[in-house]
């Protein structure tokens, strides 16, 4: 390649821009700061802003930032401001791990709020356990984890199903068709569902798993027609939820006779598929946007004001919101010199806060959260109607499907 002086100049200029953009981060020295220095408490916010799960994770990022802004506007935590350091893990487990290291080791954050998928939580777990830091995980998940370095504020299977499955059996019948995406979460939920059905004398007519991102459900719908279940118990996630609902409607099936009962369909998914396709189906979760409480009215109003009137709140973003307040309460209990991740973990045990869904509490034994199960039906306007509300909050039992195993403060204990 022959090269004139001008092209060389142009090329080196491009290269300069190329290298220059990369430089600042190499020179950041890792000063040994205390966790609360100069009236600032640094926390990490680790939700994907790009990539496949960006749409849902952006709403989690927004709910977390909203809570942090509210706390800071009200004077911070004992005069210290919370400084959120936002990173974009790009829906990729390896990037999650890289950014978690940056937040924990590089920035010395005292806690990190993050993750939607279990895969990303599993990817960052070694970082938090080795560095003895604290991860706040807002998503409903399959349970069966007992880490001292994670605060779990989403529902585990017993909190979504204990009320839901008997209710479905009573209202619609005993024949269940289990459909889920092919990974650990749906399999664990279904394991638990089968246990409940066994007690209730129910029957599983089919158990089927489709690949993640699957969008062609005609064979599933044919099978549904031929097996005639009373309930289609769905743990399909992501874009597949939208496809399944639309194809169900297009096939002319009737939600009044054979409804889908989902653990994963929130306002967010309903907005993506359109209210018409969602109408008539059921979801069990601790929070719905229409829930009536002063705290929820405040949350929804603030969220819309901050991020746009067309935005919806849902059961994961609500957990993001209240877990930030739990963090605040835990930090308030500590002297500034004691501010370390393990101390925050110990301080948050048994901590209570009035969340939009109702008063929640961190269970000291397993660091999961006492929540308020609800059953709701989707309406064509894109919102839900809450039909059943638990009379009492429900204890989280992350090993509910496995009698003999339980998560305690000493770690996982097996009774044999």
């Amino acid at each position: 390649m022959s090269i004139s002086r001008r092209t060389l100049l142009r090329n080196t200029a491009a290269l300069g821009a190329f290298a220059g953009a990369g430089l600042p981060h190499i020179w950041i020295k890792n000063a040994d700061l205390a966790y609360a220095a100069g009236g600032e408490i640094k926390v990490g916010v680790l939700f994907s802003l790009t990539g496949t799960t960006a749409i849902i994770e952006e709403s989690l990022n927004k709910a977390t930032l909203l809570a942090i802004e509210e706390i800071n506007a009200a004077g911070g935590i004992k005069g210290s401001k919370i400084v959120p350091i936002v990173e974009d893990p790009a829906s990729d487990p390896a990037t999650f791990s890289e950014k978690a290291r940056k937040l924990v080791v590089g920035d010395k954050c005292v806690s990190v709020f993050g993750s939607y998928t279990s895969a990303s939580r599993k990817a960052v777990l070694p970082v938090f356990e080795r560095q003895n830091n604290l991860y706040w995980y807002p998503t409903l998940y399959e349970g069966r984890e007992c880490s001292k370095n994670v605060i779990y504020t989403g529902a585990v299977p017993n909190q979504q199903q204990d009320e839901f499955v008997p209710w479905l059996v009573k209202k619609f019948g005993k024949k269940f068709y289990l459909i889920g995406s092919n990974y650990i979460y749906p399999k664990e939920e279904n394991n638990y569902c089968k246990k409940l059905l066994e007690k209730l004398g129910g029957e599983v007519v089919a158990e089927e798993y489709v690949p993640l991102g699957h969008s062609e459900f005609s064979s599933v719908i044919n099978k549904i027609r031929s097996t005639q279940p009373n309930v289609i118990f769905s743990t399909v996630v992501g874009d597949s939820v939208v496809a399944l609902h639309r194809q169900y409607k297009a096939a002319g099936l009737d939600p009044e006779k054979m409804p889908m009962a989902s653990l994963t369909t929130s306002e967010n998914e309903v907005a993506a598929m359109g209210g018409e396709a969602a109408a008539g189906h059921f979801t069990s979760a601790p929070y719905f946007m229409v829930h009536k409480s002063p705290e929820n009215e405040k949350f929804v109003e603030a969220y819309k004001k901050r991020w746009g009137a067309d935005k919806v709140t849902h059961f994961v973003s609500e957990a993001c919101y209240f877990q930030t307040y739990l963090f605040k309460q835990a930090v308030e209990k500590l002297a500034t010199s004691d501010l370390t991740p393990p101390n925050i973990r110990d301080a948050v045990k048994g901590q209570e806060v009035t969340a939009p869904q109702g008063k929640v509490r961190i269970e000291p034994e397993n660091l999961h959260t006492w929540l308020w199960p609800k059953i709701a039906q989707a309406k064509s306007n894109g919102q839900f109607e809450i039909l059943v509300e638990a009379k009492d909050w429900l204890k989280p039992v992350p090993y509910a499907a496995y009698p003999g195993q339980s998560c305690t403060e000493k770690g996982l204990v097996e009774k044999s």
Partner: protein
Amino acid sequence: MPSNASNSSGLQRLIAQLAPLLIVSALVFALPVLLNNDFLLNKVARYLVLGILTISLGLSWGFGGILNLGQAMSFGLGSYAMAMALKLKTVPVHTGASGLPDFMVWNNVQHLPWFWEPFRSLSFAIAAGLIVPALVAAALGWFMFRGRVTGVYVSIITLATMVVINLVIIDQQSYTGGFNGITDLAQLELFGVAFDAYGRATYYLVAGCVLLSLLVAFAFTKSRAGLIVQAIRDHESRVRYFGYDVALYQIFVFALSAAIAGLAGMLYTVVMEFASPTFLGVQLSLSVVVWCAVGGRQSLVGAFLGAVLVAGMQGALSESAAFLETWTLVMGALFVLVVLFLPKGLAGLAQSTWRWVAQRRQAAGGAVARGVSQTEGST
């Protein structure tokens, strides 16, 4: 003595060609002295591993003319081999000596599957991390190159094979951990040294493997087989008419490239502390092609630096508050610029700059000489 003279000039050329390789390796080894920060070293170690992966692609693409879009398949196989061994090391601690890895318990697996058994031995796992990717590549190469599949079809087949293996791993979650991958691993221990992901030992292990991969790949390109492979890249049928078994050479470079990618995969598991199906995903596999193109695919050092610089810059851009929302756009724009203005990548830029400087110096020297002869003439 003409033969002697040509020998010494050949040696000089070899040294000149080795120089960038040795300088870059020396820099890699010297970095811990300059950068007294274990967190950043850990981060750089990750980029170095991606660099090794890109060297392996440079070998098959730049020198063999085989554009393997599924290079991450070999990487992922290496990564899983290491993860399986390190997972089994945690079993006695977690669930007793006769226990099973946690995800197998969750999936109601009763006995350790037969293909997991040998991974109780770390040496077996390391050998498997190199040999399995090489064998898979050789088998795939045997079908493709014996069948005289070339060009874009090779890329499609390699990409498709990787996707198939990726889907199988995600689907067979009782044996592979599925979508979540294999997590919660023990630390690698070799010859009494524990390789902590945050420690210097791991950095030096990775740095040593960078040097090793560069040297092995370099030695191959200078060997007789390497020259034939390059000839095949430039004119396949002509080489075939000379009587060479073209497919055999192609299979060899394809398998060698896969083994180096497998090595990189094993190191990645050590550095990241988990294995995930995304390690053999389309996204990573295509990124490697981009890194290789940016660095310069016909230069091993160029490919390596391309990966380290671009991956490093990606990390830096996405971490700077100013680019948080737009970093993917900035990266895209930079790639377009590089492809438009630097078709041979950064290595090509370095070469042409070097040549330009040399020409200027020569031209200046010539002018002085002419001036001298003119003054001589006038007197």
